């Protein structure tokens, strides 16, 4: 791995949600987050060119996505929602967190079998409504980021992997690593879920009604 990437800590979080005071789910919802605490090579001063790190993050992203899926104990086919985020230590700037947009998104889409072009996924356009994830990660990976102190919490937004408008899958996971990020650190985060909110019932586009396969609807 590039010498720009120095991984100091890896924090995984998996939760199994059975209910939220309503009917108990037959299959519990799983939500998982992985946070890697990295040295921020750009902390402490302004660096005009930060792009080399973006490239260097790609292999780490793929490894983290796979580790998270393994920690959740499910095959990639069961992942239905995702999101990503970054927390930058006080010695860095928000732009350093933005370096995670491309590699973080790429990582999970790679894991979920994204083929890189929409034309590959038009199989849903016929008469049969596909189930599962025929589109394989067509939707933009929702994200957020902040500069924060050690222990800062980030609410990482989650949306459906194939259609951003699927209302049942709008969610967020609070992610924090006690003691990190220090001033010279940067935390990169991926989150994934196996389904809708446990008692989703506010209407809108349903996952089984995805029809356009354009990442939105």
């Amino acid at each position: 791995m590039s010498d720009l990437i120095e991984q100091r800590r890896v924090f995984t979080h998996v939760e199994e949600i059975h209910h939220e005071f309503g009917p108990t789910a037959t299959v519990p919802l799983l939500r998982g987050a992985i946070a890697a605490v990295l040295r921020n090579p750009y902390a402490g001063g302004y660096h005009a060119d930060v792009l080399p790190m973006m490239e260097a993050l790609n292999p780490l992203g793929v490894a983290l996505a796979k580790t998270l899926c393994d920690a959740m104990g499910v095959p990639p086919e069961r992942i239905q929602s995702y999101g990503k985020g970054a927390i930058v230590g006080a010695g860095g700037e928000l732009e350093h967190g933005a370096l995670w947009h491309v590699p973080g998104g790429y990582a999970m889409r790679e894991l979920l079998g994204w083929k890189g072009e929409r034309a590959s996924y038009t199989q849903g356009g016929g008469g049969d409504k596909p189930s599962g994830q025929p589109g394989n990660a067509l939707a933009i990976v929702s994200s957020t980021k902040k500069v924060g102190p050690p222990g800062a919490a980030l609410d990482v937004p989650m949306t459906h992997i194939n259609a951003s408008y699927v209302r049942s899958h709008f969610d967020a996971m609070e992610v924090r690593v006690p003691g990190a990020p220090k001033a010279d650190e940067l935390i990169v985060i991926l989150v994934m879920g196996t389904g809708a909110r446990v008692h989703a019932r506010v209407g809108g586009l349903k996952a089984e009604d995805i029809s356009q396969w354009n990442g939105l609807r």
Partner: protein
Amino acid sequence: MKAKIRKIIVQVDEIHQDGGKAVHPPTRRALAMAVIDNPYAGRFCENLDELIDIGEELGGLLGERCVQALGIAPAQAHSYGKAAVVGEGGELEHAAAILHPKLGAPLRVAVSQGAALVPSAKKQGTLGTAVDVPLGHKDAAFVRSHFDAMEARVADAPRANEIVVAVVVTDSGRPHPRVGGLQVHEIVGKDGLR
């Protein structure tokens, strides 16, 4: 299952570097938490047997989840600890009922052996209240390299009628222990202390 579980959370914290020095192999601490219904919330009840039995169930369940998350054999576990956060509708004694009478035995099965006391902490709290779960070596409480703690916290719990129960198991001590005291290789493992 007596415990009414709303959610189970498992976290693994793997430290690869501390103080600028690499940690080989990385230290790992696993935390398993259950958010449960407090059957005694909102009323004073002299007898707390139901929570005592729930503690027994959770000692095994959460201990096993930790060992599983670490991907180790039970005998490879090093240290452990337990804690509970009681929501506003409950009392501190409810945490004691879960943690102290029966939780330890099945936890010790999950980590194989465990002559030492399981260090514990408890508090009353609300959604997102953090509790620092104290850690000590499972076979000898005086092992100084393994005195540690892991922060446990659930963003949306405990609600007033809930309790968060946490168990931590590690496969290592602190990243760079160097303050002396009893060492792991000096453990006798008979009295739980040395």
